[in-house]
């Protein structure tokens, strides 16, 4: 999808945007660890948050790498 980006557009590409969304949701899930009363509940929230953070980070870094390589090619 990164090649969909309009030429001359220096903003974030689709992967970076999706990555940011997942990271934000992951952070909220990690913060939500305080909510459940049981340890198992806290651990489940933490696991879900970490998985979302990991997916988001991978998408963000891959998108950033594509954007930088695209900018170098354009130059």
């Amino acid at each position, binding site marked *: 999808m990164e090649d969909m980006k*309009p030429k001359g557009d220096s903003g974030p590409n689709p992967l970076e945007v999706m990555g940011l969304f997942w990271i934000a949701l992951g952070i909220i899930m990690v913060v939500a660890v305080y909510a459940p009363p049981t340890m198992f509940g806290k651990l*489940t929230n933490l696991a879900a948050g970490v998985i*979302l953070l990991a997916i988001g980070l991978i998408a963000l870094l891959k998108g950033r790498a594509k954007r930088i390589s695209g900018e170098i090619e354009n130059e």
Partner: protein
Amino acid sequence: MISGIDLFIVIFFIVGVFVVGVYFKKFIHTSEDYFLAGRKLTWWVIGMSIIGTNIGSYDYVGGAGAAYDVGIAQANYEWIGAIPAMVISALLFVPYYWRAGAYTVPEYLGKRYSQPVRVIEALLWGSFLVCCLAIFFWASGLMINTYVGWPIWLGILITAVVVGIYTVTGGLTAVAMTDVIQLAIMLVGGFAVAIIGFHEVGGWGGLVEKVTVEHPDHFRLFLPLDHDTYPWLGMILGLGLVLSPAWWCCHQAIIQRTLGARSEWDAKAGMLSAAFLKMLVPLLYVLPGLFVLALAAEPLSDKDQALPWAIKNMLPAGLAGLVFAAFLAAIFSSVDSTLNSAVTIWTRDIYQNLFVKKAPDKHYLNFGRGLTMVFVVLGALLAKPLTTSFEGIYMAMQTLLTFFQGPTLATVLLGIMWARATRWGGLSGLLGGVACSVTLHMTGMNFLYVAWWSFVAALIINAIVSLLTKPEPLEKLRGLVYGLVMKDEHVQNSLSSRVEGGE
């Protein structure tokens, strides 16, 4: 019903999806961008978007309820009822749709057979998709009302505004990319529910032990021939051989993503990767249904309460919000895909094909956007009247789908596989198949068998009429029929040179 942190997660999800969806507006310049994402979708986006589109709120609520009621036989809807057909779709159907350069399945049929076949198919699918839209809106209102407590009309309004705006502005690109985001949330939520469930029941062994005490058939994948809903023969003939291939090979909302692929390889790989993901889908609702059966002290009065029970009694605060966001994701992804597909069919196969044939491209882009807004308003307004006027509207829609899915599959299958199939064969097979399914339905036959026999009837009528009428000229069929590609000297030479070149 849900706590403060859960509500915060749900509101964040709604706002976030809206913002991400609207971001894709800058990619839309032509009607091809709007309807087919500029034919730039990559395989993994296609695969995830297909699954996101396929999973609806009914799969969650109804599927969990059915699993509670009949056990893992419900998973057949995802396994035998999807995966073989998806592989066939990827290898046999998708390449021909993609090569034909069509925007819709009816458009392919128009090229292969004739205008009347295209228009009839477009009217059937176009009307069906608009009705589906109204049902999805109602389901979203009900879901938000059940879990958050907001009025149904407010839930419908939120869905209409959020999904409507990003679909109008971003077209298929926004639809496909938000589907990717939403599927990731659904899968993370599904895995979390599975982990908690297995922890509660004592692992797989504990689940089987607790459930089979009173329900020995709940771990049988095939149920007896006299079973009311899921007889094994009906599952194989009706679901496995007709309904499932018809859905995965001919449903516009499913196929449209592959038509927006950047290459034929991406189109096929997208469908195959969706088949892989499909294996995981029972995790989202079949397992929760079984967990409830194992954990609930008293039997539930309504089987569709299985999933709400699981959320209320099994999930901790935070995760409950994420799973509810996954529900909303399921419904948003179904609404946006149905909306986009309905607009594509009505614009390309009806408006552009029959009324305004040679307008500038911008005209069709603007018409598509305008029609999207009209369908959003229409779907929201029809949501209540359409759903409450009929008893069991979902079953009514399933029945309606049964009327034309078998004949559609037979028409497409013969169109791709048999060069001798003619325009008259296609038309009479389609109409004869629909007439057969309506007649059989009136006799009270199980819908799985209706699908099977209407498919067989359409196949036979198409074949007989084709043999009695003049063959189609070969030039017309080039690139649209399987046999011709194998015999096409130009294509074969091109393939040979690619093989020799090490591609």
